[in-house]
């Protein structure tokens, strides 16, 4: 039997997911041994036309990282969906929009104004902005069209599985790869839509810090003080997304005394991670009157950036109003 075919792609992402795949170290050789890698722009010289030439569903597994924010991202997402039996949203951006999803607080014109007109360090006297088509001596050049709204992979194409994380942890990636190899052999696949490489509880469950009753008199930010390494960070006034984030990362950030930012996304059955965290944070404020509680709650400086750092594009409202 020939080896199963694997494709990897990056759309609107930072490249961290690609590094994360290599973070499995020498096991990458086992991946190369188990799979026939047919498309991986960061590492191998295949072109889009090579993928276009493949038969539909001829790729067994596609690990797709990055959000969808321009016409090229979208074209390749649809192309790989057609060619792949199993489409995996890999990493926080493909799963929930990730950091690029915060661009949904703005729109294309505002972004272009900032980048091509208002930057203090900019040298663009002619006011050049990206054009979809440009005539040059050699002919016409195309650029992908940037969209107003950053989308997740599953807002664009049908997705079979999700591997969340910014970036997914190496041992979880390895676990997913071995599970896929096993599943392809036996033909028994996990239920469609499953999050792979996560554990059933929340980040708090994996966090070793001592947790007591949560009562907060004021919110603080990480630069203001050095937190007690033994105690729950949320109880010390730091907004730690642990209670609203699915387990799987091994609580790496809180182990390093930094609050969880929620990159693994919400636990199963939670519709909107940010709303849940907002609810949690507001519920643990310790003050005698509703007015004082409201005052303390209003001191959270940036609710969208805090509660939806990775999840704005996949949240219920998805973006700021255009």
């Amino acid at each position: 039997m020939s080896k199963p075919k694997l494709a990897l792609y990056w759309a609107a992402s930072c490249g961290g997911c690609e590094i994360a795949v290599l973070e499995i170290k020498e096991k990458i050789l086992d991946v190369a041994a188990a799979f026939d890698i047919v498309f991986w722009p960061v590492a191998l010289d295949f072109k889009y036309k090579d993928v276009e030439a493949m038969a539909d569903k001829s790729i067994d597994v596609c690990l797709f990282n990055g959000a969808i924010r321009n016409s090229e991202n979208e074209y390749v997402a649809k192309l790989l969906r057609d060619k792949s039996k199993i489409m995996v949203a890999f990493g926080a951006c493909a799963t929930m929009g990730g950091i690029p999803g915060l661009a949904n607080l703005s729109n294309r014109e505002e972004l272009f104004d900032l980048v091509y007109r208002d930057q203090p360090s900019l040298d663009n006297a002619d006011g050049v902005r990206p054009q979809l088509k440009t005539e040059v001596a050699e002919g016409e050049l195309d650029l992908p069209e940037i969209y107003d709204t950053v989308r997740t992979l599953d807002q664009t194409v049908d997705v079979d599985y999700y591997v969340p994380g910014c970036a997914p942890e190496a041992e979880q990636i390895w676990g997913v790869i071995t599970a896929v190899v096993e599943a392809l052999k036996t033909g028994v696949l996990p239920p469609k839509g499953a999050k792979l490489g996560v554990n059933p509880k929340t980040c708090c469950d994996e966090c070793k810090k001592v947790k007591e009753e949560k009562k907060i008199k004021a919110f603080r930010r990480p630069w203001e003080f050095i937190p007690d390494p033994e105690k729950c960070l949320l109880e010390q006034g730091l907004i730690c997304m642990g209670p609203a984030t699915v387990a799987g990362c091994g609580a790496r950030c809180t182990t390093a005394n930094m609050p969880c930012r929620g990159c693994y996304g919400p636990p199963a059955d939670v519709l909107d991670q940010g709303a849940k965290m907002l609810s949690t944070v507001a519920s643990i404020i310790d003050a005698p009157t509703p007015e004082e509680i409201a005052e303390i709650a209003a001191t959270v400086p940036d609710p969208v950036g805090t509660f939806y750092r990775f999840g704005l594009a996949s949240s219920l409202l998805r973006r700021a109003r255009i």
Partner: protein
Amino acid sequence: MSTDFEPRIIGFLCRWCSYNGADLAGTSRMKYLPNMVPIRTNCSGRVDPTHVLKALAEGADGVLIAGCHPGDCHYINGNYRTAGRYPLMEKLLEQLGLEHGRVRLEWISAAEGDKFAKTVTEFTEQIRALGPLDWGKQFEAEEAKTA
């Protein structure tokens, strides 16, 4: 804005106070505008911000949360949770470009049928002045283009 715009409002009413306030308004035959769809919750503290965001995302123009006055909560301090969530939610919605006043919090007791009727009418007029929210509309053009 079209003059025939009828606001769609979702009202989350605590079953111990505000829902009974609504009943009192009804049995007292008080008149108020019919734009609010009431949803009975066990406590205003049971109103998850998810409920509010889902209502707005799926077509509501405004959301009313009504609960017992502070100190009167059947569950002792459920409405204190609401008191904390509301300003955070307002700040969040402001960041997302919603006008101030799309979501409203009121304390309405079971004896305050008149306050209930007045609140619903006032809030309906306030949302009418703000105009339709129609949250899903902003995605339509781009998604139709790329479908």
